[in-house]
């Protein structure tokens, strides 16, 4: 046992622990029990190992050892590919699909969380080596808090106001407020849609938000999350019963039409508000020169 053994073990432990904290199974049921979790904990362990040996390598003046971080980069890019491929395959069997933008967001999150594990392990080991165990523990807790802060993105309620509106028919056209959703021809189907359907208007708070909720992937993510949380009144072979989100071209509002099994407007508004703002959907139109004052 060398003087580096304990700090490395400590770093690996803290790194793996931080991965466990970041691995949450929530209403989206992802990752699923139990094998999916094992894969991610195991990859987190590997990441922690890579991070933990970084400090000792620097202190031993083994600077070329830094190149092993490139191994980590390619390793975790594979994680992203794995997540993307798995979720894309599974998406075909969802009643309301996640959509590619949401899948890409999840895949990116899985990759980046491994880098946060490397960071936690690295900081913990270095603090232990330079100072002592207690400073190491404090540094580990601080980096876990930092990881938690870095991994949590924005939510939809921060950029839009959400309002419940009863859907209605004008002839065969289905409307949420004044936003046209789709044409449903059969009177019987129209009754079904009115009985189970709920409409919501998302009003963007800023010009940037207008562009973000216009993104088709972001809209699909909303439909998927609402359908997952509140159930969906649809089956294969009933294409007319499809949740849809359409845009008002005049003011950028989005009309969301869903068919939840649990018709609770309050809950639905909360679920829509908690939908993550997808990284790939975020637009910063006002960052363009001369548009800072746009509302």
């Amino acid at each position, binding site marked *: 046992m060398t003087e580096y053994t304990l700090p490395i073990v400590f770093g690996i432990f803290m790194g793996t622990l931080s991965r466990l904290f970041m691995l949450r199974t929530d209403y989206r049921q992802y990752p699923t029990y139990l094998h999916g979790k094992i894969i991610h904990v195991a990859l987190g362990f590997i990441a922690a190992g890579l991070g933990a040996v970084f400090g000792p390598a620097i202190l031993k003046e083994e600077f070329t050892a830094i190149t092993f971080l490139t191994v980590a980069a390619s390793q975790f890019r594979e994680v992203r590919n794995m997540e993307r491929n798995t979720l894309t395959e599974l998406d075909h069997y969802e009643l309301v699909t996640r959509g590619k933008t949401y899948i890409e967001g999840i895949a990116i999150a899985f990759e980046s969380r491994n880098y946060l594990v490397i960071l936690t392990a690295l900081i913990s080991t270095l603090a232990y080596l330079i100072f002592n165990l207690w400073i190491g523990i404090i540094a580990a807790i601080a980096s876990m808090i930092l990881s938690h802060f870095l991994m949590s993105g924005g939510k939809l309620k921060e950029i839009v106001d959400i309002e419940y509106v009863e859907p209605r028919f004008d*002839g*065969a056209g289905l409307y949420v407020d004044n936003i046209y959703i*789709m*044409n*449903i*021809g*059969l*009177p*019987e*189907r129209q009754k079904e849609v009115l009985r189970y359907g709920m409409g919501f208007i998302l009003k963007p708070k800023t010009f940037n938000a207008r562009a973000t909720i216009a993104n088709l992937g972001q809209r699909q993510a909303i439909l998927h999350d609402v359908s997952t949380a509140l159930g969906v009144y649809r089956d294969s*072979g*009933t*294409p*007319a019963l499809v949740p849809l989100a359409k845009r008002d071209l005049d003011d950028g509002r989005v009309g969301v039409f869903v068919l939840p099994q649990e018709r609770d407007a309050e809950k639905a508004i909360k679920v829509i508000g908690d939908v993550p703002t997808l990284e790939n959907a975020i637009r910063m139109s006002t960052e363009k020169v001369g548009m800072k004052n746009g509302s």
Partner: protein
Amino acid sequence: MDLEKYILAVITTNKNKVPAGHGVFYCDSKEEMETITANLEAILDGIAHSLTEDLYVIVKH
């Protein structure tokens, strides 16, 4: 070229509107038209859209 949407069937009570190139179903009454449309919608896995009072199309989306 991939077609994303296409008409699978046309159901009408108006014999003057005869779209060519599709499965056309003439019906004697509005009730019959709705019944046939509902069945075709389920069979063809498409959505029934109403173009006018007497003309439905089943579209694959």
